[in-house]
């Protein structure tokens, strides 16, 4: 069924994915063994599959793989920075972890903001990602803390 191919760059590595017109980037990547991002709804509601495609945050479950020829795709693997990882651990932002790679991608994107983030800014920017375990406050606190420390050291 997957009779077409695209070449793209995933976290700095060139990969070739087999896909049909209806194959999502999420499925094509996972079938090729790139399992860092997850699919909890596969209809763009939960954010578990969040990646950055050519600089834009996208739900990879809604992105056709064949539309990603020559694209630069970044997942948690190349986006997670040590300070955010450390803050997620310290604030109890991870339980089952299924949502975590998507949250990390969304958080790193939120941290790209030109202006300092308030707690409500963070809540709004992470509202496209569902976490069922943590009640979110640890995640929000972790992102806020990293925002402050990065701006302080910038």
């Amino acid at each position, binding site marked *: 069924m997957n009779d077409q191919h695209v070449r793209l760059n995933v976290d700095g590595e060139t990969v070739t994915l087999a896909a049909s017109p209806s194959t999502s980037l999420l499925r094509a990547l996972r079938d090729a063994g790139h399992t860092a991002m997850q699919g909890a709804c596969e*209809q763009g509601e*939960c954010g578990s599959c969040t990646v950055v495609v050519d600089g834009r945050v996208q739900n990879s479950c809604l992105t056709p793989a064949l539309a990603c020829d020559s694209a630069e795709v970044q997942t948690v693997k190349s986006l997670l920075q040590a300070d955010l990882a450390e803050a997620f651990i310290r604030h109890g932002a991870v*339980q089952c972890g299924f949502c975590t790679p998507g949250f990390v991608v969304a958080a790193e994107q939120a941290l790209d903001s030109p202006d300092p983030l308030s707690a409500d800014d963070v809540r709004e920017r992470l509202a496209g990602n*569902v976490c*069922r375990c*943590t009640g979110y406050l640890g995640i929000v606190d972790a992102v806020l803390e990293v925002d402050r420390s990065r701006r302080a050291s910038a």
Partner: protein
Amino acid sequence: MTTATASATGVGAHAVRPDVPTKLSGDFEYSNDVRIPGMLFGATKRSPHAHARLVSIDASRALAHPGVVRVLTAADVPTSNLLGHIMSDQPVFVEEVARCEGEAVAFVVATSQEFAWAALDLIEVHWQPLTAITTIDDALATCDSPLHPLGNVIRELHIERGDDFTADVVVEATWETGRQDQLFLAPESAVAYPTGDGGVTLILATQDLHTDQHQLCTVLGLPPDRVHLINSGIGGAFGGREDITLQAHLAIAALVTNRPVKTTYRRGESFLAHPKRHPARLTYRVGASSDGMLQFVEAIVELDGGPYASTSQPVLGSACYFAAGPYRIPAVRVDGRVVRTNNPISGAMRGFGAVQACFGIESTLDLLADRLGVDPVELRRRNVLRDGDPFPTSGQVVRDQTPLDVLIETCVNLPYPDVDAHPLREPGGTGSTLMSARTQQGEGFALGVKNHMYGEGVREYSWAGLTLSRHGLTVSSSASECGQGIQTVLTQIVNDAFPGVAVTLAAPSTYMKYSGSSSASRQSWMSGSAVLGASRLLLAHLTERLNVDSVAFEEGEIVDAAKRRSLNDVLGDDEISVEYEYEAPPTSHGVEAFGTGDVHVSWMFVAHKALVEVDVELGLCTVLGIATAQDVGRAINPREVRGQILGGIAQGIGFAFNESLETRDGLSTNNSLTDYLVPTAADMPPVAIAMLEFPDPRSPLGIKGAGEPSSLSSTAAIAAAVRRATGQPVARVPMRPWDLTP
């Protein structure tokens, strides 16, 4: 998830979870990440009807589809077509009658997941639709022609204490709760592979390895040593992974094809496949003296079980035993029943019947407080259980439990965290068109209570093993790590006994003995005690081996009165293995006719208060803040306890406002994440937490369960706050906009 190396420290520390680094990096292996070379893929053909007779299945067109290897039906089930957590009453595949939407009728096995899905539409199933029984009343009215051979009533429970059901002031009310889905984030997924000896092994994500194994052995006609289950990474559970969903289909497929077979559910079928929180109808009559002392509680507790039992029997027990809350009440009568309908299956979800009961009793007490002209918190102060009181339903004597006056005052005095004004915090959020003149604030309070462990006479035990070598310690426990942190808890307990020794956790599987389910807020107490016992045994072994009076560990070395030795010096190439089975204090089944007795090991208590703001014209609401006091006995890992508290509150908010799998004529109308809304970061209010630590003397480490309390009374407190803000009765959760407006 194979093994995890721990770096936690001891009990009471904010220890780092061993699983978190790989979860952050995207390397953690969940069951849907497991791949075995040469594996086939399965897809489940499901009933589109809530109730229908199966006339015929024709799979010939599906079998002709490229890549399709087999289509399995009831005819392929080796021994028994019946599954069940407690009662064997649910078919592996529909044989004669489908009794709910989504029930499995066939399983396609193909060379790719896409082929398997594509072939589903080619299986021609002829159904003869039957009348769907979709209400509790209709189920009770059709007992003479039940929808299931075992009858329409799964369990009835009558509890009665005391005999004076009169009082100065009496209130009556009926409350309803919805069908909440656990919505664990990782949809069901597993791989089964044949083991070459006629047996099968599954790599899966389950809360209860050995109960799954037992059911599969019955279905397959195989002994336990031919059927093994290994837990992979579990992406959340909350009760939704206590029952068999895909396990039997995969095991049969692997045995029939002699190949590994994998399947992963899509969200829509996940909603239909696993049992959800029981919808409840709770009818109360509560009486008090004019000075606000409770005189009696009468409750009728009715649960919609869906067509199959799952855990309905103990859920009903929980709903009935907690229907009168944590109060001192001279006379209590509870009539409970859980019935079969053709609605989606109900079963275990965090709080397990006690959530519904809490909403019922706490809501009724607020009505009573209004009638008496007493502050709702004051009414509770006057009536809460004290040491030596009989528990209101079971009559079990309350000893060494949470001082409820302290719990109440702690919660009442806890300030809500400050929040800045922001459109997100307004009723309806950023999409709202409201004008602030139309909003009203309200505050509500609720107390929650539930037992930890199973209770009602079920033998309660847990096994753990420890192996010490010069490389360190390996902890074996078949307790499922669903994300709640049991592996961290076990590591911390071991670290206290063996400071400085490297600890590795073996992947939980049925190659280990029974540690019981990760449910009922039981694992920290049960498996924590098992690991503690094994640690003491291991120290005793070393004492004997070294022929000294006692040994202790310091910085990874063995120290006795005279010497300090490395593990290598003492053990060389040897290993010492010990195992320990902890058994909790026994419970009994309630006595026939009255339901009374020592039915629980012990209880957990929690208080929530909520501050809400409601747009009283549009019926939109926002939770401005929540404060909670919870007795955790002993916080083994305060950070993770906080995580349990916040996560349960988020689910409680969801249950208050949004979360119910709705049905029309038994068919679900919102089984997707587009239509079934769960709280996001934008919906989560700030939460103030007071963790009380009154160790439970029945628990070797003083532990109390921390998983469920946060979901017990958060919903009830929010509903109380909305009533205060709107003056509306809010007789049902999830509440709808039209429940909030005149």
